[in-house]
């Protein structure tokens, strides 16, 4: 009873009174929240505070606060550097192609899985396509090196069997993106169907029954029932993906980068890792990282606003 009257009262009173009241009534909720909040503050917001070194000349001896402000020096250095354009292009194209090829496949898989006859086969297929998701990036990279090896790899054996000349996939710049994106699709396309399958199973079966009675084929049902139902969630996922068009994929790129494919594999995230941690250029690489984050954030906001206007679907 006290909680009900308390809830009514909470809309009145000054901010201070409201804080006191919520602490009195809901302090237990705050205790439950505390560890999570502490984590986000210490491991997410502290670094956001520390990102100011992008505008400073960070010296470990002086710490973050004690280092000298230098304005946009590091940004200018980055944008005028020789490889800046190439790195931006590589990062953007890797993500763009990844999105272009990787985005539609889970949707197609989900629709076709939903149409499969036979409960057991369907269940098996669903379980099986999730499995590659549980393989680590290191192992995936290892598998690429094994299968695409120029001498012993099964792919090159196949090429040789059909009379072709072996290709040294992992050191040719032209093959970096196909390998990266292809392996990503192999690993995650199945996993990414989950959301779409969840949506499809939520559709009222009466719709399908009615369509069947009206003489609709399976193809008609996909076109007129499945796709319209999937559209909102697809748009949302698309907006989310747009927010990572300039994201780094550092861990995987680091594994697949070789001296041969550097022309296409030289992406910003790897550069930040090598220069920042390898050569201890903390301020300079923080500036680069900040650039990327701001651009990513701006893209997602823009796409979100655009989508809200055009299709009335948005994340927030």
């Amino acid at each position: 009873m006290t909680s009900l009257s308390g809830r009514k009262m909470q809309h009145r009173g000054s901010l201070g009174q409201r804080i006191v009241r919520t602490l009195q009534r809901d302090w237990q909720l705050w205790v439950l929240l505390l560890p999570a909040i502490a984590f986000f503050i210490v491991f997410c917001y502290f670094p956001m505070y520390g990102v100011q070194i992008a505008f400073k000349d960070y010296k470990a001896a002086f710490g973050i606060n004690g280092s000298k402000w230098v304005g946009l020096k590091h940004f200018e250095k980055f944008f005028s550097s020789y490889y800046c354009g190439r790195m931006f292009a590589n990062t953007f194209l890797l993500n763009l192609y990844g999105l272009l090829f990787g985005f539609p496949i889970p949707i197609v898989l989900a629709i076709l899985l939903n149409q499969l006859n036979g409960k057991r086969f369907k269940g098996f297929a669903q379980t099986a396509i999730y499995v590659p998701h549980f393989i680590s990036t290191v192992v995936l990279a290892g598998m690429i090196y094994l299968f695409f090896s120029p001498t012993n790899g099964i792919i090159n054996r196949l090429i040789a069997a059909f009379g072709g000349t072996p290709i040294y996939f992992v050191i040719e710049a032209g093959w970096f993106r196909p390998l990266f994106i292809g392996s990503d699709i192999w690993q995650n396309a199945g996993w990414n169907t989950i959301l779409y399958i969840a949506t499809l199973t939520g559709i009222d079966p009466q719709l399908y029954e009615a369509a069947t009675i009206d003489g609709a084929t399976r193809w008609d049902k996909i076109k007129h029932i499945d796709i319209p139902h999937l559209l909102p969630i697809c748009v949302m996922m698309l907006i989310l993906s747009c927010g990572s068009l300039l994201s780094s994929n550092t861990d995987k790129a680091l594994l697949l980068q070789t001296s041969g494919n550097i022309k296409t594999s030289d992406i910003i995230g790897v550069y930040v890792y090598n220069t920042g941690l390898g050569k201890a250029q903390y301020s300079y690489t923080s500036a680069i990282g900040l650039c990327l984050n701001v651009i990513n954030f701006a893209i997602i906001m823009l796409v979100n606003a655009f989508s809200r206007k055009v299709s009335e679907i948005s994340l927030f």
Partner: protein
Amino acid sequence: MAKQHSTRIRETHADRVFNVINLIFWLLILFIVLYPLWLIIIASVSDPDAVLAGRVLLWPVDFSLMGYQAVFQYSELWNSYMNSIFYTVGGSFLSVIITIAAAYALSRKFTGKTLVNLGITFTMFFSGGLIPIFLNVRDLGLYNTRTVMILINLVSVWNLMVARTYIQTTIPNELYEAAVMDGAGHFTYFFKCVLPLSGTIIAVLSVYYGVARWNDYFTGLVFIRDRVKLPLQTVLREILASLSSTGSSDTFFEAYADNLGGLQEALRKAEVAKYCCIVVSTVPAVILYIFMQKYFVKGVMIGSLKG
């Protein structure tokens, strides 16, 4: 069966064609998904010479466990294996508890919730970046400690939202009202009612967090310097990295040459040992998934619907 059949509208010709094509499509997909995994497994139990000659395609050839024998000698690998078990079990345990507690809190109404939600969601779209995160860890005195392997990535926003949605949609509000009537506070309600009803989502979160931690090599690469504290994947990277070179600089395997009867023999075994390393490092994650599979599909579906 017969009765059902008579009431069902017969499939049209177009549907039958569709079904056949769809079935063929799925057989192809399953082949693409499963064959590479199968190939790794059969190569790991075959003779190195057969693997090198490319004769291992469908079944193990000249069955042998010498690769696994070699792998068991790599003491560094097993040390990192134990590290990874510790990081994964300890870290995931903390992650799941903290996530569930926070998810419950965020499923209730209270003053300040909007602000907390905003603060948490924001971290999903914006971060300080690799270098500030690294400096932060160093300034906290956590660089090169086992603690950082546990604490970093402790809570994932996505998992938190999935758990919150699950609690909101599966545990009826009437239960809360009844508990409050009986004089229960949030603690009592959370521990006595919410936790026992959250088995499914706890299983899902365990898999999410556990697999992410087990498979992570980057954290170890960035934050750990002492080799004895490295997690499995970071060590595995060095083993597999010798694959990108042509094989002459297998320094990792040279270290074990004495135990394995000469360098030549060690390198020969290393050829299958690489496959064995992949198998032993991947098995825990896949087994966890298969065991949790039952809860998994259900829990993920409920959690993700509004997430």
